[in-house]
């Protein structure tokens, strides 16, 4: 555990000693802020309309009108942000040869990988935490339900955790950061949009596809419900990619 935290600490220091983490967090918050602003304006516009035409007001509340669109936009921003966060993790060490040295220290592959994974996850958590200021603003001016807000954040965190796991896996199979980042983006995108294919597939296939879709599993979180199968889905994706990362490190095939 002490060795894991040594790796964790070193990675975290690296993120926050280079300006890249600050740039990424700021960019992420700026984008999320932009989405929040435009969604909120649109919501205001709808409210204004509803003032004249009360039938429009039926479906109008802050959760449906602001938070859910915001969450799905944030998940798209994550698609870009997380590969940037994770692509360096192992690829750069492999390119520089430092990873070889790290693996000859008395540290297990698991400790080395988890130290890195948790560091990237922490930076992601800081990013996500930053976006809390938008719902906080809503709460100042209005009175949104807190339940769906909290579960949405749990869902986004779990989604991000699985993206980070994909990211560390792709960083482990190449020594090129660009390749690692691009592959993470492509696969995360695939998981995100695969649900779009569901309506066009047959009844059985569409159920299978829906099972794989990241958005499908996010849906109930944004409605304020935490379903065990949905949590299991994200945990499974995360564990699967971390396991694959360990497998891909040459050493885990043979040494004990």
């Amino acid at each position, binding site marked *: 555990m002490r060795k894991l935290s040594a790796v964790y600490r*070193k990675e975290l220091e690296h993120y926050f000693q280079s300006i890249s983490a600050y740039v990424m967090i700021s960019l992420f918050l700026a984008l999320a802020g932009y989405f929040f602003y435009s969604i909120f304006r649109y919501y205001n516009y709808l409210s204004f309309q509803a003032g004249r035409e009360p039938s429009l007001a039926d479906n109008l509340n802050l959760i449906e009108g602001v938070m859910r669109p915001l969450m799905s936009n944030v998940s798209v921003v994550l698609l870009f942000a997380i590969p940037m966060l994770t692509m360096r993790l192992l690829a750069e060490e492999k390119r520089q040869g430092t990873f070889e040295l790290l*693996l000859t220290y008395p540290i297990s592959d698991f400790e080395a990988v988890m130290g890195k994974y948790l560091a990237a996850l922490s930076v992601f958590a800081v990013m996500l935490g930053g976006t809390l200021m938008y719902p906080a603003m809503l709460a100042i001016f209005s009175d949104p339900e807190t339940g769906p807000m909290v579960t949405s954040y749990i869902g986004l965190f779990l989604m991000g955790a699985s993206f980070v796991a994909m990211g560390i896996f792709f960083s482990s199979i190449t020594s090129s950061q660009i390749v690692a980042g691009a592959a993470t983006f492509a696969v995360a995108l695939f998981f995100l949009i695969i649900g779009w294919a569901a309506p066009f597939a047959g009844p059985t296939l569409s159920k299978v596809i829906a099972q794989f879709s990241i958005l499908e599993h996010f849906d109930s979180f944004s409605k304020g419900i935490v379903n065990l199968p949905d949590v299991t889905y994200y945990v499974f994706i995360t564990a699967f990619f971390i396991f694959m990362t360990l497998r891909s490190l040459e050493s885990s095939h043979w*040494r004990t």
Partner: protein
Amino acid sequence: MIRVENLTKYYGETVGVRDLNFQVETGEVLGFLGPNGAGKTTTMKMLTCYLPPSAGTAKVSGFDIIEQSMEVRKRIGYLPERNPLYTEMSVRAYLGFVARVKGIRPPAQRGQIDGVIERCGLETVHRRTIEKLSKGYQQRVGIAQAILGDPEILILDEPTLGLDPKQIIEIRQLIRNLGGEKTVVLSSHILPEVSQVCNRVIIINHGELIAVDTPDNLRSRLAKAAILRLAFRDEGDAAARASRILESIKGVLIVRQEPGGDNARIFTVECAPDRDIREEIARALVGERIPLLELYREELSLEDIFLQLVTEEVS
């Protein structure tokens, strides 16, 4: 201390090393010598548990590199070939990280880090970022991380590669100092380095072990012919007479002559290595009143031995 048994590594079809067998005794400095591509790095990567052998194994302090790699890794300090470091960190922060990963207990960390900083002569630069240091200092940082945690064995892969001559001398001195207390395996493709620093040499080429011995023994064992050089004043028929006398002495194989400076004549005499005939030659020449100026035996350098070994393998 290290016992290598039939160690073999294939990279697909390519041979990395084949069927290596050797031992390293406690406290010795072993030189691992061979041209580029000989398999030095491959062997070291297996000993440090980074690469799995294709066949065979090695025992380090009695622990198997495959079955008990964690125990092996606790006992080895490793300096890889290109000295990979986290160059964005400061020397001290980097060593702090290594100390934690090596599992040094927190109360002992500070003292140990100070110790290796002093040992490796890093006192003046320990707060600087590694990438800002000269290659020589970076190499010291590489050695510092290897000796941190006081491992019994050091494995240094071409520790002087890419350094300038002054830095090379300093790094060799540092390694020699470490040699007294630790078992060191050091690879090199530079012969004088190995003969200066090591007690024993292993020569490999094309992944196969060619010879194991002390630098001195290798020199005498492999001396095919001893070479003597003579010089005398070139007056009258001295050259012709000397040539006749030399050829009549038993054990002389080939005599060559060339004019030297200062009115001297130089003879190169190859003789059989089994008997020292210097005295006999001197007595015969002086007895015949040849004006002898010099007579000495040329040492066969390891460099020559190495060339012989390698060319022999190829042909």
